[in-house]
């Protein structure tokens, strides 16, 4: 594993549940990723514009601007072309999944999640060797 390589990767976490944001932050930081957090869609997108993360982990059901809209905006922004998008949501029907992928996501994971599964998928998306494999 290369914590060093992971250190260069920036992950944006957007969720209106503070404790979930906290859990993800600890989980990812412990693996060496850089993280920034937002608790609603609007500020999440602002951070993405300015910080240009490698990966955006988005909740869907959020007030005002939901995760799907954030994803669409990222996809419409040329200088954010390289941002990987991962939905992490409680909405679990196949219609929800299709909508998520249509909004431009690379991956769609339904809550509750398994920590290791998240780390594996994040590593895959960012092309980083996983510490657990």
């Amino acid at each position, binding site marked *: 594993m290369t914590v060093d390589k992971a250190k260069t990767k920036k992950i944006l976490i957007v969720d*209106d549940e503070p404790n979930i944001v906290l*859990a993800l932050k*600890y*989980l990812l930081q412990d693996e060496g990723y850089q993280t920034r957090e937002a608790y609603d869609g609007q500020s999440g997108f602002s951070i993405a514009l300015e910080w240009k993360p490698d990966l955006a982990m988005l909740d869907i059901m959020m007030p005002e601007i939901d995760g799907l809209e954030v994803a669409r905006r990222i996809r419409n922004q040329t200088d954010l072309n390289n941002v990987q998008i991962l939905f992490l949501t409680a*909405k679990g029907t196949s219609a929800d999944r299709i909508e998520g992928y249509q909004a431009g996501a690379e991956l769609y994971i339904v809550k509750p999640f398994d920590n290791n599964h998240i780390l594996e998928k994040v590593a895959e998306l960012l092309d980083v060797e996983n510490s657990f494999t």
Partner: protein
Amino acid sequence: MDSGIVVFISLIYLVLLFVIAIYAQNRSARGISIVNNPYVYSLSMAVFCTVWTFYGSVGRATQTGLGFSAVYLGPTIAAPLWYMLMRKIILISKHLRITSIADFISSRYGKSTFLGILTTIVLVFGIIPYISIQLKAIGFSFEIMTNTGSNQDFWDGSAFYRDKVNYFTILLAVFTILFGTRHLDPHERHEGLIAAIAFESLIKLISFLLVGVFVVFIAFDGLGDLFSRGWSDPALSRVISLDNSSSGMTSWFWVLVLSAVAAMFLPRQFHVSVVENNNVSFVRQASWMFPLYLFLISIFVIPIALAGKILLPASSDPDMYILSLPLFYGHELLALFVYIGGFSAAASMVVISVISLSIMVSNNLMMPLLLRTRTAKINGFAVLSDRLLGIRRVIIVVILFLAYTFYKVVSNNFPLVSIGLISFAAILQLAPAVIGGLFWPRASKKGAIAGMTAGFIIWFITLPLPTLAESGILDPAIMTDGYFGLSFLKPHALLGIQNVDHISNSCIWSMIFNIGLFGLVSLLSTQDIQELAQGDIYINITKYSDYPDLEVIRKEASVLRLKQLLVRYLGSTRARNLLNAFDGKLSTASDDNASQEFIGFVEKNLTGAFGAASAKLLLSSDIRQQNITLSQLNELINQTKEILEYSQALELRTQELQETSDELAEVNKQLKELDKLKADFISTVTHELRTPITTISSFAQMLDSKANLSEDRKKEYLGIILKECDRIRRLINQVLEVEKIDSVCETREITYTDAVHGIKSAIKRMQPLIEEKNIVLLMSLPDHEVKIKFNDDKFLQVILNLMSNAIKFCDPEKGKISLSLEEFDEKILVKVNNNGAVIPEEFLRRIFEKFTQYKQGNIAKPEGSGLGLYITKKFVEEMGGTVSIESSLNHGTTFSLTLHL
């Protein structure tokens, strides 16, 4: 005035009428009829007012005073009856394509040829005297206008050429032929003619009113002046009073009856009000507009009669006062206008009467007779309808010639009105058969024939024959000695009846025999199938006009043959047009057997052209009627009635079913909504559960997998896990609470709780949270118990919910909450106020709904399930209380709770 001018003006006027007619005809051909409205319809009915009204009313008033008005009161009083009868007659006539009163009667009694002939004869005899008085009035008014001497002797050859009436008669014949026989219309509709008639009615009314105004306000000094002179002279008082002797009253009564019947059944009235009717609904307006016309044209009769008596020499004929008065004052133009008005009255009556008579004579008299002769059948008529027009033209000339002769021989010797009433009495003979036929199912052909024949004979010997005797054509002895020298056959005192005038005498006896025989013979005779079928149509016309296919008798005919008949009788162009029109509705694909609809269609069109009885004869060899016995027919009629009743019942059932189904649909919709709400609720609840579980699971996994976690981290993780577990527990409790509320099966026993105590214990529980957030709490509670109708636990829950919301939305730095309890009017008011930011209006509206959560700014989501306020509201409302929220900039957010003591 020079006679040349008068003749010229008369001609110009006729040309004007013709132009109006052509204009109206063209308009209706382009679909923008000027005739298709109740006003023209009502005006056309004023063809009722002939020269009898125009000239004769004044003459009558000089003899009987107000008695003249009976002729106008009759139709006015009978207007409601008229409305009822006419509606029915029009519906029947439109349904069966009936084009005359003779056809109407013949068709009712099994399309009887004999009744058609009989009615036509009654009408020809009845109307010819009536036409003759029109000719007389035209001639007389012409003489007054041109101031030529009195009548010349008819038999004086050289005088014939000097008598202007000849020329007028010929002119009217030409005019009638031009108007009435331009083409053969299956409906016998002449919109142009009706427009001209309505115009003439206007001219009549205006000229009459002008003379009235002239006489009353210019010749005299108003009505007061005229009447005071009338009262002062005993010779004049008769003009302004009513003859109230018993014979006067009898006469008055019969004139009322006669005029009411005549307004309906005179051939010209039947023609304008039924045959030319565009829309049944016009009858309603006409039932007041027509009487109004009669009233207007009568108001100046008495004043003119008085003025004539006062001013004009005794030798002056009262029938011509209206013309003589303007001339007396030297107003020639006004006189000319009156002359045109009178000419209008005569011309409209003559034209319409002669046209309707010619239709009847050709369809109901000539056609059946012609069709019975062998040659007609063998040679056929190349195109029967073309032949018919020629026949009608001849008939028109013949009728006018007869009327002219009658005028020359008889009418000259009598006043206008007395001859007019003779005609009315003839029309009366049709009334029993028509009215009985409309309402009495047992009315039979034999009854109608018997009644009408008897009535006609009595009328004939008591009214027209005596006029011939009095004119010297017959032996005058019959007037004094009775017919054949039998004293009980004295024409004006039949069967020894005394003290009544000759009109009443004739009406009484003719009606006794007419109605008596009609009723008696109908009761004693049986009706054949045709009669029953037609009678059912007449009596229950609404049923047939609603269900046009309800023909009782089944008929068979070949399509090809029927088409050939149409071509043969109506000409190839007309036949093709008709077939095209029919094909639009229903195919006439030439499979051999024609449908009942097609047979009916052919029958109706031939009926329109040739009359019911003639059409029946024309088709008799080509349409086979299934032989049905009387009992079968009755059964059929009963079945039809049953089917109708059944279909009505079915309609009712369908309606009920529709209602039930609507109700079910509504319930179903509600259930679906409920179901959707439930599904939404479950999905929201599961979503709300997933969130804490996700957090718990994530932190637990971290605790589990990372051995080298610091103690602080471990403590933090565990703290979060416990908090989220608490959240789940709360959520579950509240979901259960909501379920209870929604299913409303919780028992409601009334308990009481101390509100002050409840609030205090809630605050105690919240104390740690309040301190943690450094919130200042201000309380204003009474220092005594306040018992309220509420469950202990629920009240505690309500206060906890309100408090936790207040804490949640407090100003994060300098939080302040004030809580108060006031008592008033058997109620308490609890207010919980916090100093947080304003909550937007759109959110306030939804705040008490399930899973509504308000989130301030862009900080993390507030804790809670979104069910707390929903539960609060439900608890409070359950106990009849209210809870509301207000939020404003300087006053923060306040929850107000009202509960009953």
